[in-house]
């Protein structure tokens, strides 16, 4: 739900009229804490955790660190983030393996949390890491859960142990127990026991789960929980902790737009770390959990770190510098435009990438409408040009454009649109490189410009007509290409990206200064 927008924006709003004051009073802080409380509740963080949490934040916010900070709003967000990460477990925890195989991993959770699918994902992941996992069908409750697990096992390419047909027939405790013996004789080094979904209030089934636990004495008991769960997360987590005493948590369905506050509640109430996150329908959509990134997600600050990691993998530093040079000297050509676009593609799906930017939660809809093939079309058009044309777009007269359109299977209109887009992007890049801030509809200014060292004059805003959708796309793409790299150099400070700079279109001296600090130049 993005009706609320991102916390960082709202805090900036709260602090807007405080700028002149220089210091924060207790009532200012209270107002902010209320906003934080609301944001956390919207994100489904459990109420008790919220209360506890806001108390801590309030205390710290009234302390010196905020008053002395250049931008109190950002400082507060930083505090909130730190505290969130602290609760979420600070560091990543890895799966623990038994000294004497087989390692036994048991899965437990509510109905529909995604246990069976997760079993398949975990098995596939383990197989990739060089283990030989065995899936055990101990969910004999739900109709055809056994069949589902067998199918999943086949897809994952791992073995399955399913002696009972399920649908209420057979004893899951016995199946689990036998599976260990089976694994030992067949030399499987990890056993994943899929159990039936059960409610925290169902004493009988909880007893059964604990019996399974006692029978197989697992090295890890993973509590599988849906990222969309609400306030009930606490009651459920407690019930499972009392019932089976899980050792770690797996968060599923994180590919939706739930903010996943439940993660926070569960981690803080049970003190158990979140080990994995499951992020999609395919068996490969499974990754170790990063507390810091989850914190940003809860606050709707975007997943800057992942974005930067991907950017670092795809971009070449020297090339980025060369590109920045080109921006500032006006020698940016269609060839470079093409190269940039290809680099962007190297980073993976643009949609996914944009989704990681702060505040982008609200733009999901537009993101979804974005057509990735557009880039392929653009590529085709540019590749149909001669080298001379690519270097100097002024050469492109009517007949040349017609030839290009034919060569690339597009129309002259499309070629025209591309050239216009390119020219606008080049113009904008130049502005950025000279230290100004381009105006991008719907996004707020983006800090960019590698060549900021050359001159720091503030350029007046360009009034080009960037309202059209293609133009917007192009400018966003280009800005990303330019902006991502420098941000990577100062990786810790992902916060100002969306926050400070977005308050007004014309940045103040102070904001520009902080922007420059960010870029690490």
């Amino acid at each position, binding site marked *: 739900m993005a009706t609320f927008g991102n916390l960082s924006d709202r805090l900036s709003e709260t602090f807007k009229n405080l700028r002149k004051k220089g210091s924060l009073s207790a009532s200012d802080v209270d107002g902010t804490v209320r906003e934080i409380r609301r944001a956390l509740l919207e994100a489904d963080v459990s109420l008790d955790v919220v209360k506890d949490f806001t108390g801590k934040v309030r205390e710290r916010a009234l302390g010196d660190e905020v008053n002395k900070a250049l931008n109190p709003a950002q400082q507060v967000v930083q505090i909130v983030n730190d505290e969130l990460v602290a609760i979420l477990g600070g560091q990543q925890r890895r799966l623990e393996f038994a000294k004497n195989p087989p390692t036994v991993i048991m899965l437990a959770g509510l109905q529909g949390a*995604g246990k069976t699918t997760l079993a398949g994902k975990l098995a596939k992941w383990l197989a990739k890491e060089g283990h030989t996992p065995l899936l055990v069908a101990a969910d004999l409750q739900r*109709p055809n859960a056994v069949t589902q697990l067998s199918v999943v096992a086949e897809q994952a390419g791992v073995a399955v142990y399913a002696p009972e047909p399920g649908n209420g027939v057979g004893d899951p405790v016995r199946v689990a127990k036998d599976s260990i013996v089976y694994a030992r004789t067949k030399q499987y080094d990890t056993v994943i026991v899929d159990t039936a979904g059960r409610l925290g209030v169902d004493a009988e089934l909880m007893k059964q789960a604990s019996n399974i636990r006692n029978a197989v004495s697992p090295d890890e008991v993973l509590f599988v929980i849906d990222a969309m769960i609400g306030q009930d997360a606490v009651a459920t987590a407690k019930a499972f902790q009392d019932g089976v005493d899980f050792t770690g948590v797996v968060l599923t369905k994180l590919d939706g737009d739930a903010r996943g506050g439940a993660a926070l509640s569960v981690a803080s109430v049970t003190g158990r770390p979140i080990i994995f996150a499951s992020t999609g329908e395919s068996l490969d959509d499974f990754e170790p959990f990063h507390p810091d990134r989850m914190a940003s997600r809860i606050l709707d600050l975007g997943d800057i770190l992942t974005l930067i990691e991907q950017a670092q993998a795809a971009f070449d530093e020297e090339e980025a510098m060369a590109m920045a040079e080109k921006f500032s000297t006006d020698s940016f050509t269609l060839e470079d435009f093409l190269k940039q676009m290809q680099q962007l593609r190297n980073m993976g799906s643009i949609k996914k990438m944009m989704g990681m930017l702060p505040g982008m939660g609200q733009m999901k809809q537009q993101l979804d*409408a974005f057509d990735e093939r557009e880039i392929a079309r653009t590529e085709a058009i540019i590749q149909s040009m001669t080298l001379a044309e690519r270097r100097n777009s002024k050469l492109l007269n009517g007949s040349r454009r017609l030839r290009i359109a034919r060569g690339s299977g597009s129309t002259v209109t499309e070629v025209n649109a591309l050239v216009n887009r390119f020219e606008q992007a080049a113009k904008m890049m130049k502005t950025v490189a000279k230290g100004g801030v381009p105006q991008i509809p719907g996004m707020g200014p983006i800090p960019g410009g590698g060549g900021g060292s050359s001159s720091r004059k503030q350029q007046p805003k360009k009034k080009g007509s960037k309202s059209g959708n293609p133009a917007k796309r192009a400018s966003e793409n280009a800005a990303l290409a330019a902006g991502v790299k420098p941000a990577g150099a100062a990786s810790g400070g992902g916060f100002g990206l969306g926050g400070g700079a977005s308050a007004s279109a014309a940045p103040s001296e102070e904001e520009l200064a902080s922007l420059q600090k960010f870029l690490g130049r």
Partner: protein
Amino acid sequence: MAERTPWSLSGALKGMFQKPTIDETTWDDLEHALLTADFGPDVTEATLDDLHKKVDRYRTTDPRDLQRMLRESIEERLSKYDTTLKLSERPAVVLVVGVNGVGKTTTIGKFAKFLGTYGRSVVVGAADTFRAAAVDQLATWAERGGAQIIRPQQQGQDPASVAFQTVEYAKRTGVEIVLIDTAGRLQTKSGLMDELSKIRRVVEKQAPISEVLLVLDATTGQNGLAQAEAFIEHAGVTGLVLTKLDGSARGGFVLAVQERTGIPIKLVGQGEGINDLTGFTPHVFAQKLVG
């Protein structure tokens, strides 16, 4: 272990309604109770404001009045919309949609049984061709519920074509009610949401769709609203089904969903047994919720 107070606030509210007068802590407790029942900050605030005003107007200090007012307020919000299922078409086509793991297939099984007890003949269409063994799961439920089933003819068949065949079968054999199971999909996957629109379009070539039921899990938090909005846009949802009410979750978010979207709750699921599905009555719901 969580206390077994079936989806009721009564546990949380008991203490405050037994006090002699309404004081500041009463309001705090009430807010706490509403928030922990997933009402969400917006609805909680609105409800509290509303109650504050009423208490002022009637100058009451008795917490039991407050309890009654709360019950009435919730009931009033819930009964704004018509909760009856419209299944008068023949065949009456019902499409069941929702995110992954909310209990769509289970709901269909129970619903088939529910309709069967009223003497209606039912056929279910297994249009969840994506999840492993979903068809078999549905088949088991259909058998328990005494319904016929149309299966996909091959692995990974287009769900729209399964839906089409199911409706066609119903028309040919005169089966009264058609229930179509769809694969679970997160509302953010636009490709999958488009698939839903397609199923709708294709089915409508055969017969008008009587109801599109969105299944919501009571344990869902504020994301339920986002789910509802997306499914309404793509599937034209006409009613909500609230499942898993037998747990410790209260599903307070449905109030916000109903209010924001104007789509009524039509069915309530509260257990794993085949008979654990009932129609939705605002009065009973409010009564149980508040106690």
